[in-house]
């Protein structure tokens, strides 16, 4: 095992999968000559050449469609969006073609591709560049959504996503690229999609979350531990397919849960999770499930307002205490 950055873990995953299967290729803005806007594709052009690593013009709709076309004829493209905020331009291709083609073709035309890039806020990038984009990709059936929070999860899940025959939206975190973590050396380290991970174990309350918020959840759990409250932190890792059993198991254990997410509250990821818990774990609940989300406003640019609008550990702690009635 070695401790590497989230960025390097992604880089390794890409390199290993491109080595393993010559149909895998990478395309996006700045991925080749510039080594990637966030350096995730560093060294790949040099290693694999310009047939496998392709710079595209600034036209998300165009190169997303190009990737989809390539997938339809048997290639396995990895399309990088510089951030998922920019991918809104490509949503017609993603939602109307990538996610529906298998179904509309009666199972004949699969789309084995990955759309990847950072989603969510960084620091003071402004309202248009700070959105958590999961919900747009989750709503239409036909596309998988994965949100790794640690380097090990990033590597294992990206390899699984590339090998998956369905379109996968792989959402990274800009603030996570420098996070270091232990990653197994195993050359074939793959984490299956649809399996959540209990990042912390406790018996008093469940904090269910995904993506960069996993780290905020762990901070909140540390605060709660000082008050003698031990929290389960469940990192969903895959939002579609969803590990419902893991969610129900933690709620059965603690009888109370909160959902922590970076996105907005209205029809956010948490709304879906809460609905599942309410329907399938009703008798296990001692309190309603609360959600901690970004404030329902376009994210402010102002430094202090941005911090206030984003969900932090303090608000997660407060919500946990509320469902514990303390």
């Amino acid at each position, binding site marked *: 095992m070695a401790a590497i950055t989230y960025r390097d873990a992604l880089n390794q995953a890409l390199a290993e999968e491109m080595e393993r299967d010559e149909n895998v290729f990478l395309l996006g803005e700045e991925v080749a000559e510039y080594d990637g806007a966030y350096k995730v594709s560093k060294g790949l052009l040099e290693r694999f050449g310009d047939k496998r690593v392709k710079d595209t013009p600034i036209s998300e709709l165009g190169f997303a469609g190009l990737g989809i076309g390539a997938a339809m004829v048997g290639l396995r493209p990895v399309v990088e969006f510089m951030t998922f905020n920019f991918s809104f331009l490509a949503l017609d291709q993603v939602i109307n073609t990538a996610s529906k083609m298998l179904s509309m073709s009666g199972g004949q035309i699969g789309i084995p591709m990955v759309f990847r890039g950072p989603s969510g806020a960084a620091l003071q990038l402004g309202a248009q560049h700070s959105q958590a984009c999961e919900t747009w990709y989750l709503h239409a059936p036909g596309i998988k959504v994965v949100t790794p929070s640690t380097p090990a999860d990033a590597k294992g899940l990206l390899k699984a996503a590339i090998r998956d025959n369905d379109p996968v939206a792989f959402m990274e975190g800009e603030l996570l690229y420098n996070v270091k973590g232990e990653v197994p050396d195993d050359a074939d380290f793959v984490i299956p999609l649809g399996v959540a991970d209990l990042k912390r174990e406790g018996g008093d309350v469940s904090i269910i979350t995904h993506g960069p918020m996993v780290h905020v959840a762990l901070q909140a759990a540390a605060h709660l531990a000082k008050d003698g409250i031990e929290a389960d932190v469940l990192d969903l890792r895959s939002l579609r397919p969803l590990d419902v059993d893991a969610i129900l198991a933690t709620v059965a254990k603690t*009888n109370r849960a909160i959902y922590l997410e970076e996105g907005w509250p209205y029809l956010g990821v948490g709304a879906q999770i809460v609905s599942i818990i309410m329907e399938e774990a*009703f*008798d*296990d*609940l*001692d*309190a309603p499930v609360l959600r901690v989300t970004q404030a329902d406003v376009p994210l402010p640019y102002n430094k202090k307002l941005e911090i206030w609008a984003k969900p932090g550990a303090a608000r997660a702690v407060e919500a946990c205490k509320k469902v514990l*009635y303390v």
Partner: protein
Amino acid sequence: MEALSPTMEEGQVVKWLRSEGDGVSHGDVIAEIETDKATMELTARGDGVLRAILVPEGGTAPVGEVIALIGEPDEDISELQAAAVSAAAASRSGRGEGDETTAEGGVAAAVEGAAADDGAAAVNRAAGAKLADVATGSPAVSAAADEAIDGRVKASPVARRLAADSGVQLATVSGSGPAGRIVKRDVEAAIEAGPTAAPGRATPPMPAAPVLVPSGAEFEDIPLSQMRKTIARRLTQSIGPVPHFFLTIEVDMGRAMEARATINTMLEREGRKISLNDLIIRATAAALKRHPACNAHWLGDSIRRFNRVHIGVAVAVEDGLITPVIRDADLKGVAHIGAEIRELAGRAREKRLQPDEYTGATFSISNLGMFGIHEFTAVINPPEAGILAVGGVEQVPVVEAGEVVVRNRMKLTMSCDHRVIDGALGAAFLSTLKGMLEEPAAILV
């Protein structure tokens, strides 16, 4: 000292759970009080600081005496303390004279701090105000009763499930959640207060109420005829307060034991089982329904005949005996009765029965068979009119069709209050009961 049971006259403080200076809130359990029957919880009736403990652990106080003071942290309680002490002294010397500073029945143990120039008057005013709060049973009931105003108890789903599984009545639990919602910890506390826990699920869960509750009058009072009055007067003169007579009958238990085995086979997959005594209780209840004259109380100027059957089952406890009551025993299945007995007996041994669980029997049963007793005569629990003493099942040689065979026989001895039950009446009841035990199918008829 609150009246924590209907018959309580004084209580002993077993343990103070809070100390002087501790903050307390309405509903907090602040002390354990030993009454004539069981150890009960004393709850605070107000918010504030426990300023003074006037009766220490081990001390005894009659119902109505002030045993502690709750007030504001910096309030001057010296007058209240003096008034409470003098009231206690006055009550000890002048009990039963309607002393102004103590109220009859239940005055709350803790007096709320009240600004008053006259300490004694403050005790009195607070005493008057608190009378309304007194619960005749478990102190928790009054608080929880507020929650069910529209008939709906607010409880979280897991609290409901926990209560249903462990037989806790939600209506008796005080909710600590928002708007009085009963939450998991409230039910857990209620379970701890009256533990039912056998490890795992050895005692099966008990449904909260009988399946069928009959409508109509609970009882009818029969005025005494001249003959009745005469019998009563003469027999009392001859034998003491309750004129007992005893009827013994021998019952062949072969078919009953077969029924037990069959039933236990059916229950095996649920991990439950019944005992012969459970069957005897069920049969007795059915027989009493057929002979309502035996399901009665002597009230002195009338006889109360009950339309429902509540059987008191004698349970030996450490320093005596108590009879937890199986309500509507004629409407419950044997498995239910068995589970209920075991649960109540367990709590009885730990002195954790609530008053409404050991009062209200219409008839009693005592079984000493497990001690090897063949037959015995039990003493009637007044005001009940009868009690059944059950001996052990013995293998005895019996002559049948000219042959000596081995049969399982059991002796039942019924003690009857001759003021209510005459010989023929008691004999008829026993004959019915014998018939039911010798052929359990008769219970279904």
